[in-house]
């Protein structure tokens, strides 16, 4: 299943690219996309692992962009 988040104050296009790569590499994430222009993060994971994966994704966001607000859509 897919989950979407609104990202507020992601720093730069390069940071968005790095974040996208980092999220894609999380175990359980099938695909991930950080849309810098729309300030959106979308990732896809298996339904039965979604809670665990979501936690990891949010963890990465916090780690890489501490100033960024992440709100589910």
């Amino acid at each position: 299943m897919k989950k979407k988040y609104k990202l507020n104050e992601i720093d730069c296009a390069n940071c968005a690219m790095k974040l996208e790569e980092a999220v894609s590499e999380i175990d359980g994430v099938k695909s991930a996309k950080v849309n810098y222009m729309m300030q959106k993060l979308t990732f896809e994971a298996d339904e039965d692992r979604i809670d665990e994966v979501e936690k990891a994704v949010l963890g990465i966001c916090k780690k890489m962009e501490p100033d960024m607000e992440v709100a589910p859509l």
Partner: protein
Amino acid sequence: MKLNKKQKKWLARIVTAAVLFVVLEILVHMGAFDGNKWWIGFLFALVPYLIVGYDVILKSIRNISRGDVFDENFLMMIATFGAFGIREYPEAVAVMLLYQIGELFQNYATGKSRDSISDLMSIAPETAFVERDGEIEEVDPDEVEAGEIIVIRPGERIPLDGEVTEGESLIDTSALTGEPVPRRAACGDMVISGCVNGQGTLKVRTTKAYEDSTVARILEMVETATEKKTRVENFVTRFAHVYTPIVTIGAVVLALIPPIILGGGAQVWISWIRRACIFLVVSCPCALVISVPLGFFGGIGAASRIGVLVKGSNYLEALAHVNTVVFDKTGTLTRGEFRVSRISPAGDDSKEAQDRLLELAACAEYYSTHPIAESIRTAYGCPIEASRIGNAEEIAGHGILASADGHEILAGNAKLMQSRGISAQEPQTGGTVVHIACDGKYEGIIVISDTVKDGATQAVRDMKAAGVRKCVMLTGDRRESAMEVASQIGIDEVHAQLLPGDKVDQIEKLMQSESGSGKLAFVGDGINDAPVLMRSDVGIAMGSLGSDAAIEAADIVLMDDDITKIAQTVKIARKTIGIIHANIIFAIAVKIIILVLSVFGIANMWMAIFGDVGVLVLCILNAMRLLRRNG
């Protein structure tokens, strides 16, 4: 210029620091910090430096603590610390100051372009008024189910797709189609979400839930359009991956190796460390990275303003390289409706004789339900009294034998005439010919043909002007009628009498003959050419507002019927790619020049700052040109 709260605070810091910087610069020139008073200068510089750059330093320290060293904050910190180290205080402040100005501008510019995108997105309805148990409730469009009745008051945005059950109004579709003329909607008509209701109140039975409604699907597509990876983007990603590490390593080498080899004192070390700092400042690939999505967003935004929905950056990229445009004939270049195009009485060609011939034909075709019969009756226009018509007999494959006003009328093909011993000539025409005879006497012919759409000729001409080399037409229709349309419009190549399956084969052949990076676009009405739309490099569906199959299968959707917009979209695509390429080349060139100059000690920190934020700002400005352009 409207700044948000964060940007205002940011600007205030920049202005304060800039004022202090000017004072500092003056004091330095007056020699206020000469000799052993350097530490006063240091402290004086530290104030504006920290005011403008404290967050950069905080971020960079935080990043180092979690192992991510080489980000731009770190680079700025090192570069400015380097300047402090060699007692170039004004330079340290200036570097940070310019960096922050660039960052603020970038923040503002991206926010601004995002706003322009949101404006395009303003087609999203906020609420729906749904009728439940006789009462009207205001709910979120999400909560309305298909089949419920919604009420749309004058001036409101239609929240869900549906069928009008009550009321009549004019609907403004311009947000979706770019078409300024409103459409009429009355009982039984379908209305599309995202359009604005005119003066009448409508009751609409929803046919889809919100997430399947046109508006939701369009928003979803536009938002995700820039996520499709393009060739330019792949290039930039790969470049960015190698560029930053290489430049960073280069900086380390530059700072250590020459002074060790050349030897010499502190001055030599300072000189080379300074060159290394310049390397670090220009090592951020942000200008490159942002150019691509920003450019495509601009292009897609510009296209959507004229009612063209581009489903992905990659399609806009492909469209910019289109050499061949293939059209489906019926419904795309022609109206797909049959009309009487020629009335030729056998004897004299007067208006009266023409009217009489048409009347005879209309009487003969009185009972027929064939599309050709309908177009003849439409052309005749006047109602015919049923009492005038005796019996009518349909002769399969030939035509009709009918009696009217006591006369015996034959209407059909040449074979029908011949079978009755009437000689009839087959004229040279692409349309369908109906021969008419009355009481055994040949009266003349009526030609019925499909008519070319207004603007089709213009569309082909515009496309050629926009750089399309070849326009091809595919049709299942007869060769003669295809050729007639083709010569009228200016089509280069015609493939007629194709079965639906042949069209895909034909597209594949054409795509193979395409040289190099040349792309092929197919334009169809989206109703029965989904396989061809999918197979071609760029599938363009037209007139497909509300048609799910077309929106699904096509890569680019013309929201209204206007095929002249294809040429406009090609122009937008070429311009978009041009701007993106210009930005990439410009950014890489400037950076490389500065790198080379700094190796030889010619570049200074000011140039480096330009190579970083200056280039970034120029690239953003360049990309924003697309968004500013109207249509």
